[in-house]
C-alpha cells in the first residue's frame, strides 16, 4: 500500500509498505551523537531505518558571501571557523589557492613548518574523532585520554600562533611568524609520549569485543558507490580506494616524505576506524621527518608587495613601512583568473575554488568541504541498518557541521 505523507520540507512523499508499523523520528538537531547541529529525518520500521534524510544548514553563516567582501588576507580568519577541528588545514587550502593565483614561491622552511603543523593538526582532529565516536557508542573512557593528547597539540599550536582553535597561522606567502625558541623540543617531547597514548587507545578499544560487534559489517559502502558519492579521505580509503592527495597530487613537499597510505577493503565502520588509527602512526612519522628538516631560513616569500614585512624592517626602512601600510589599508591585487586547489585535510579532499577579478578582494570563493560530501552519502550507509548503528556510522564519517554549513 502506498500512502502519501509530508516530509519535513512540507512536500508530499510516497512511502511504500504498511505504514502502521512505521514511524518518523527526528533525530537532532540537539542530539549529542550528531556532532553539532545535524538533524536526521528517519523513517523507522521498529528499529530498522528505512529512509534517512539529513537536514543541514543550522550553522550556516554565509561564509562564502563574506569572502567576497573581505580582502584576500582577511579571508584566512574566516577559514578557521569552518572545520574547527582542522583549522590549519583550512588555512593551508585557502592560502595555497591564493598563492597559485599570485604565482608565489614558498621558502623551504615555511613548507616544512606547514607540513609539521598540518600533521599535528591531523592527529588532533583524529583524536576528537576517536574520542567522540567511542563516546557515541557508549565507551566513555577513551574520550578523556584522547582529549589529553589533543590538549598537548593545541598547546603547541598556541605556542606557534597564539590561537588554540583559530590559529590563522599560515599566511599568503608563508607563515604569520617563525616558530618560538624551543618549539622543536616541545614537539619531540610530545612525540616521545605519543606511542604510549596510541597503545592505550589500542588496549581500550581496538581489541574490544563489544567494539568489534558494534562496528564490523555495519554501514557498508562499496568501492564503486564510495567514488560515485564522492567520498574522500579516510572514509574512501576504508572502502578500498587508494587515494590520498598527499601522494596523488602532492603539495608543500609531501612527495619527499616517507609515509604509507593505509587502505582497508571492507567499507564498514570497522574499516574506516582502522584507516584512521593507522593514519595516526603515519602522521607521527611525518612529524618526526619534518622536525629533522627544520633548518634556519626565511619563512616568507620574497614578495614585499604581498607579504607583510618584519616589524624590525619597518622601523628601519621607509619602503617596508609603506608596503605594510598599503597591504593593510588597500590589500594587494591578485591576477585575474580562477583556480581550484585541493589538499588532503583530516576528513578528505578540502578544495578551494577561487576566482579573482584582478582586485584586492576575491570575486568568488567556494569551499568543497569533505564533511559536506561525506555526509551526503550517509543515507546509502544507514538505510537498512538499526537506529543505534546510525550513530556509529555518523561517528565513522567524522563530520564537522561548521564545515558542512559554512
Amino acid at each position, binding site marked *: 500500500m502506498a500512502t502519501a505523507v509530508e516530509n519535513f520540507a512540507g512536500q508530499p512523499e510516497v512511502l511504500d509498505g504498511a505504514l502502521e508499523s512505521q514511524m518518523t523520528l527526528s533525530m537532532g538537531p540537539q542530539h549529542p551523537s550528531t556532532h553539532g547541529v545535524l538533524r536526521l529525518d528517519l523513517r523507522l520500521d521498529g528499529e530498522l531505518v528505512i529512509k534517512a534524510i539529513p537536514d543541514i544548514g543550522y550553522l550556516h553563516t554565509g561564509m*562564502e558571501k*563574506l569572502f567576497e567582501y573581505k580582502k584576500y588576507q582577511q579571508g584566512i580568519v574566516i577559514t578557521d571557523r569552518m572545520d574547527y577541528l582542522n583549522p590549519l588545514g583550512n588555512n593551508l587550502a585557502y592560502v595555497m589557492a591564493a598563492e597559485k593565483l599570485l604565482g608565489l614561491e614558498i621558502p623551504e622552511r615555511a613548507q616544512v613548518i606547514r607540513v609539521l603543523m598540518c600533521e599535528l593538526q591531523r592527529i588532533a582532529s583524529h583524536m576528537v574523532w576517536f574520542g567522540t565516536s567511542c563516546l557515541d557508542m557508549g565507551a566513555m573512557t577513551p574520550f578523556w585520554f584522547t582529549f589529553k593528547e589533543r590538549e598537548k597539540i593545541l598547546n603547541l599550536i598556541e605556542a606557534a600562533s597564539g590561537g588554540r582553535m583559530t590559529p590563522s597561522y599560515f599566511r599568503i606567502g608563508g607563515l604569520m611568524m617563525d616558530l618560538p625558541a624551543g618549539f622543536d623540543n616541545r614537539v619531540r617531547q610530545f612525540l616521545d609520549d605519543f606511542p604510549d597514548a596510541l597503545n592505550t587507545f589500542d588496549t581500550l578499544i581496538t581489541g574490544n569485543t563489544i567494539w568489534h560487534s558494534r562496528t564490523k559489517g555495519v554501514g557498508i559502502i562499496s568501492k564503486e558507490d564510495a567514488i560515485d558519492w564522492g567520498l574522500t579521505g579516510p572514509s574512501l580509503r576504508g572502502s578500498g580506494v587508494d587515494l590520498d592527495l598527499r601522494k596523488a597530487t602532492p603539495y608543500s613537499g609531501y612527495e619527499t616524505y616517507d609515509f604509507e597510505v593505509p587502505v582497508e577493503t571492507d567499507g564498514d565502520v570497522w574499516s574506516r576506524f582502522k584507516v584512521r588509527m593507522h593514519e595516526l602512526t603515519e602522521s607521527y612519522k611525518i612529524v618526526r621527518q619534518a622536525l629533522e628538516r627544520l633548518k634556519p631560513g626565511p619563512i616568507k616569500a620574497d614578495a614585499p608587495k604581498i607579504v607583510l614585512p618584519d616589524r624590525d624592517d619597518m622601523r628601519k626602512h621607509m619602503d617596508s613601512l609603506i608596503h605594510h601600510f598599503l597591504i593593510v589599508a588597500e590589500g594587494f591585487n591578485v591576477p585575474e583568473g*580562477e583556480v581550484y586547489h585541493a589538499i588532503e585535510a583530516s576528513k578528505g579532499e578540502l578544495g578551494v575554488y577561487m576566482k579573482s577579478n584582478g582586485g584586492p578582494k576575491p570575486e568568488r570563493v567556494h569551499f*568543497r568541504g569533505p564533511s559536506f*560530501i561525506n555526509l551526503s552519502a550517509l543515507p546509502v550507509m544507514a538505510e537498512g541498518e538499526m537506529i543505534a548503528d546510525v550513530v556509529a556510522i555518523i561517528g565513522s564519517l567524522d563530520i564537522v557541521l561548521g564545515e558542512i554549513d*559554512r
Partner: protein
Amino acid sequence: MTEKLHAFVDKLKSENEGWVTSVADAFGEVTVTVPRESIVDVCRFLRDKHGFDLLADLCGADRGPEEDPRFEVNYHLFSTTHYSRLRLKVLLSEDAANVTTVTQIWKTADWHERETYDLVGITFDGHPDLRRILLPSDFDGHALRKDYPLRGYEPYSLN
C-alpha cells in the same frame, strides 16, 4: 605540465567538435567551456571513456547582474586512477539560468547542485530533489548573487 590535460581536450574535440566552445590554460589548470546542452554527454564521455570517475566539486558563480552570460557552473572532475583534474564550465544567461543535472552520472552531484540552486539560484533540470539545502525553505532570494546585499533585506524572520 598540462599536456596530459590537453590530450583529453583533443579527445573531446575529435569525438564531437561541438562539445568544446573554448579552452583556457592558466595556473596549471585547464578549463573547457562546454555548451549548456551537451554538458551531460561530455561528463558521461569523460567518466566512461577517460576515467574521470570522481566529481570533486561543482559550484556556481555569479559574474554580476550587468554581465551576459551572467552565471557559470564549474565542474571539477578528478580521476582516482590517473589523478588528473579538469574543469568544465557552462555559461548561463540570466533569463535561462538552468542546466541539465548530472546526478544520473555522479550521485555526489545531488548536494552540490542543491547548494548551487540554494545560494546562486541556478536550476538543475531533472534533479530528483531540488530544494534548498543550507537556507530555510522560505528564504527569499539567492544569497550568493552579486545583487543580494551582504546583510540581507529587511530583518529576516522565520514565519
